[in-house]
């Protein structure tokens, strides 16, 4: 009595076909990641070593390692996030905790979203016009970091807002009821319980700041700069710097006769760092979700 009719069997076959096609689509999308990473590693293998990381490019960048660009990227990331994080967090605090729903805050929201969609080359133009020229910072680590900071700001604002919004409203009301001011409530209850979300957002921006090329190309990153190997304080704020992303671009397009493994090695270090940082952020997010206090 409950035997499947031919109509039903056809439907089920259609269902299975659709499922298979969708699965295939997903795999086709995901496979490139694994293939790419694998291939890059394979090509870079001969050159990957500690020495590669710690020695400078030599011989017109046809030999040696990536110390100067690596250090430069570290500087850029640290400084840009040191600028963007406080501004982003406080802006999110304003939007989520203080602002009332009116036309003004709607404009701010719009501005944040649109800031997020600005092409990286336009950020480069902005950095050039505003920081390098107008503010007379010249091409420098400072100008480049400021440019990167503006670029990472919207995501920090968005992820902080999400973290703040996940703190239930009854907590705030309970604090206000006993005479705590808005700021006291934020400082003692809301912010401490949003730290994990904020941290995840900031960590994700580390990889973004490390990977971007265009915004730093015209604001402070440079083709070549000689700095002493192994000295972590070799760069100054108003120096120009080499950077990993820029370096990869340079040696794969601007320098002829580069031994194959060199650009692959650079790509692997850059990609590896980015993926490792992102993976760490994901792990952190999961860990902290489980340690929630309510």
């Amino acid at each position, binding site marked *: 009595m409950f035997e499947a009719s031919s109509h039903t069997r056809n439907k089920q076959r259609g269902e299975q076909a659709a499922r298979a096609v969708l699965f295939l689509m997903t795999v086709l999308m995901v496979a490139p990641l694994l293939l790419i990473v694998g291939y890059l590693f394979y090509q870079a293998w001969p050159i990957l070593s500690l020495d590669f990381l710690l020695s400078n490019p030599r011989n017109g960048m046809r030999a040696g390692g990536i110390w100067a660009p690596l250090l430069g990227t570290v500087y850029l990331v640290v400084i840009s996030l040191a600028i963007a994080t406080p501004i982003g967090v406080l802006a999110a605090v304003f939007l989520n905790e203080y602002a009332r729903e009116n036309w003004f805050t709607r404009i701010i929201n719009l501005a944040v979203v649109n800031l997020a969609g600005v092409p990286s080359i336009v950020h480069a133009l902005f950095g050039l016009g505003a920081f390098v020229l107008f503010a007379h910072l010249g091409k420098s680590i400072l100008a480049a970091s400021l440019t990167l900071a503006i670029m990472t700001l919207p995501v920090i604002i968005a992820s902080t807002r999400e973290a703040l919004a996940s703190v239930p409203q009854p907590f705030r*009301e*309970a*604090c206000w*009821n*006993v*005479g*705590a001011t808005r700021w006291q409530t934020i400082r003692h209850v809301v912010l401490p319980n949003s730290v994990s979300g904020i941290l995840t957002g900031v960590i994700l921006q580390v990889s973004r700041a490390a990977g971007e090329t265009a915004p730093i190309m015209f604001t402070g990153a440079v083709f070549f700069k000689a700095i002493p190997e192994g000295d972590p304080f070799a760069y100054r704020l108003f120096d120009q710097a080499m950077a990993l992303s820029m370096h990869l671009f340079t040696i794969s397009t601007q320098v002829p006769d580069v031994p194959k493994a060199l650009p692959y090695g650079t790509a692997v270090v850059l990609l590896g760092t980015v993926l490792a940082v992102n993976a760490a952020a994901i792990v952190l997010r999961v860990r902290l979700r489980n340690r929630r*206090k309510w």
Partner: protein
Amino acid sequence: MTGRPMVEISGLRVWYGRQEALKGIDLEVRRNEVLGIIGPAQSGKSTLLKVINRTIDDVPGAVWTGSLRVDGEEVRHIRDVSALRRKVGMVTPLPVGLPLSVFDNVAFAPRMAGVRDRSQLEDRVERCLRLAALWDEVKDRLDSLGTRLSGGQQQRLTIARALSHDPEILCLDEFSIAIDPVTTMRIEDVLKELRSAITIILVTNLVQQARRLADRTAFFFNGELVEVDRTEAIFSEAPADVRTRQYVQGIFG
């Protein structure tokens, strides 16, 4: 119960956007009395409490006119709202344990007010937890998270928090909704102990609770104060308004 009333309300109207939640309230809360406020849902009872401690300010779209004085001061003109809120203890319907230790939960208000001395805080925490009939259950685990207590314990914790800043008025908004009858009884005993020292405004959906605890009872219906009188008058003798009689008898609710 003599002297200047603790709370004087005159011509109070409150709107949430276009909706009028309170339609002109004139009411007095006398010092050291227990005023019960009863009435069906959406009568404006909670709204009244929100105006008393000015948390109505945080409700988007809320507008109010009229006069409400606490201890002689017009609430609208008070500049230090935190001081007002410390004068008025508020217990909400749903128990809320802050995501802090039990100790920090009760020490929160005094700390925010400027008390830093550890021994003063410890005394205060113990006193308030004892008053709230929670001390014995938590004294060995003051470090545990407030959010991990049971519902009934969290409600008593809320009461301890409300008492921690020495309020002169204690407002309770349907405090027994989310807790079991045994805890409700314990808290009612607490209120009986407190009644001589502070003024209590008890908003309740349990008509019999008002009968047990209140000196006077006010009946709110649909945003209006229908009637306020001695509790016995409202319950046993014939109330003036027919709606009061019907509500009290359970004909509607």
